[in-house]
């Protein structure tokens, strides 16, 4: 008798711990009155605590929808969304979000923009006025890390696009969220600024180890940033390929130009191509 090998596990679960983010059998239709678009169908995703995950795929494949489901801004039509061991039924308060558009408030300085979450989120909200100096100190420490120290008193429209995006990232992290949701935050930046921000983001993640889900069109970005990358099919979105990225590929800028890095990107690219050709 020959032993059949055990079926390969997609995601090794360390210590039998439940994933921090878990979507099972999720379906979602956009639009009312039954004529809507099927955005996601039989969608599965799990992200471990402290893991950096990237979702890539053709445009309109439901990547942003996935983030809305995870954050609780939308509820699925069917299936389960579990974050931090709890079923998500309303907007979560433990998340930070950043988008392609920095969405800063033009009447607030960089510093006040970053402090905005603390004016809203519990438990900081109640004591915000009393503790403002302490919060500002914390924000300044964060600014120092991302190279914004000198522009704290400037208004968003006085900053470059890259600087604005840095402020936006700081705003998503100031309340120390357990879960960071990034919807193409580097998408609208020029190539060099984007590289800088990749490293800034990585350094913050290395330090704080929050769970992160990054949506991107850029395969290089996904391989450089994430520990695991999932490729989504065209609508209705479903994960067609998952790939773990070895740590040495994400070590530094030079790693991006190694053959192994190119291989990883190529492998992903083939699955994206497949997803586009076969929409069902």
């Amino acid at each position, binding site marked *: 008798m020959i032993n059949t090998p055990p079926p390969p596990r997609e995601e090794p679960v360390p210590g039998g711990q439940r994933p921090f983010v878990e979507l099972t059998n999720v379906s979602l239709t956009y639009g009312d009155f039954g004529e809507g678009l099927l955005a996601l169908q039989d969608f599965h995703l799990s992200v471990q605590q402290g893991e950096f995950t990237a979702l890539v795929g053709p445009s309109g494949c439901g990547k942003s929808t996935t983030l809305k489901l995870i954050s609780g*801004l939308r509820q699925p039509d069917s299936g389960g969304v579990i974050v931090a061991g709890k079923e998500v039924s309303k907007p979560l*308060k433990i998340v930070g979000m950043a988008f392609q558009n920095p*969405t800063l*408030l033009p009447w607030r300085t960089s510093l006040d923009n970053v402090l905005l979450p603390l004016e809203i989120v519990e438990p900081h909200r109640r004591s915000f006025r009393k503790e403002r100096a302490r919060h500002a100190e914390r924000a300044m420490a964060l600014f120092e890390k991302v190279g914004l120290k000198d522009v704290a008193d400037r208004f968003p*429209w006085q900053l470059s696009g890259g600087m604005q995006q840095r402020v936006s990232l700081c705003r998503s992290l100031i309340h120390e969220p357990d879960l960071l949701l990034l*919807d193409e935050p580097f998408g609208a930046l020029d190539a060099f600024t984007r590289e800088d921000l990749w490293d800034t983001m990585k350094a913050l993640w290395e330090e704080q180890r929050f769970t992160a889900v990054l949506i991107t069109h850029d395969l290089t970005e996904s391989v450089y940033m994430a520990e695991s990358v999932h490729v989504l099919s065209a609508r209705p979105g479903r994960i067609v390929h998952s790939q773990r990225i070895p740590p040495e590929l994400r070590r530094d800028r030079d790693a991006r130009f190694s053959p192994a890095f190119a291989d990883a990107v190529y492998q992903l690219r083939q699955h994206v191509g497949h997803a586009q050709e076969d929409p069902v």
Partner: protein
Amino acid sequence: MNRRKLRQALSPWVTAFGFFAIWEVACLAFDIPQSILPSPIDSVRAGIEFWPVILSASMQTLYTTLVGFFLALVVGVALGALVGSSQAMYRATNPLLIGFNSVPKVAMVPVLVMWFGIGSVPAILTAFLTAFFPILANVATGIATLEPELADVLRSLGAKRSVILRKVGLPRALPYLFASLKVAISLAFVGSVIAEMVASDGGIGYLLLTASSSFRVPLVFAALLVVGVLGILMYLIADLIERRSTRWATRGGGSL
């Protein structure tokens, strides 16, 4: 002040002076009788002669305009915030509001007089009715055009509707509000004068009516000049407030 700035500052005065100069010269050159078109100098002379009447009439009109305008401001902002912060509310109220705005406000003055009698109240209410719609529409637009991503950021922090409105919606609507105030103050003024002309016992509108019915054409024109000047003054005040309070919207590039 350099030359270019000086020229910019003087240009409105030069234009206004030129306008009156042409008017004056035309009256002299074509020998137009005073009973048809009095010259500016004749009008000003009439204004000086009847200044106590004009002054008290202006004060009356100014009073009804401002009271009506502030009512419109309060009601317009409150309703605008309500309508702008909910899609359902917007859909439900929009046709009614548009229909209401299409009714000529002159047509409502007789009704107001029936209800409240001759006096300041119909003028105040007409000013209010003419002025409040642009304020409402602009505030609602300012709030409703909030970027969805920004709303998501705030909602994911656990912000309630009222918090989003206070922290983002209302500040965001301020430039829209101030833009509408400039329109609204002029409209309130028109509303007051119209109501006074239809039914009142005081104010510039009433003065216009009595002066024209007794063929004192220079006095009519003096009153019209006063209306114009008051309109400009109130516009300037609204403009000044706008520039002071929403410099971020003009990216600090305002002329102050």
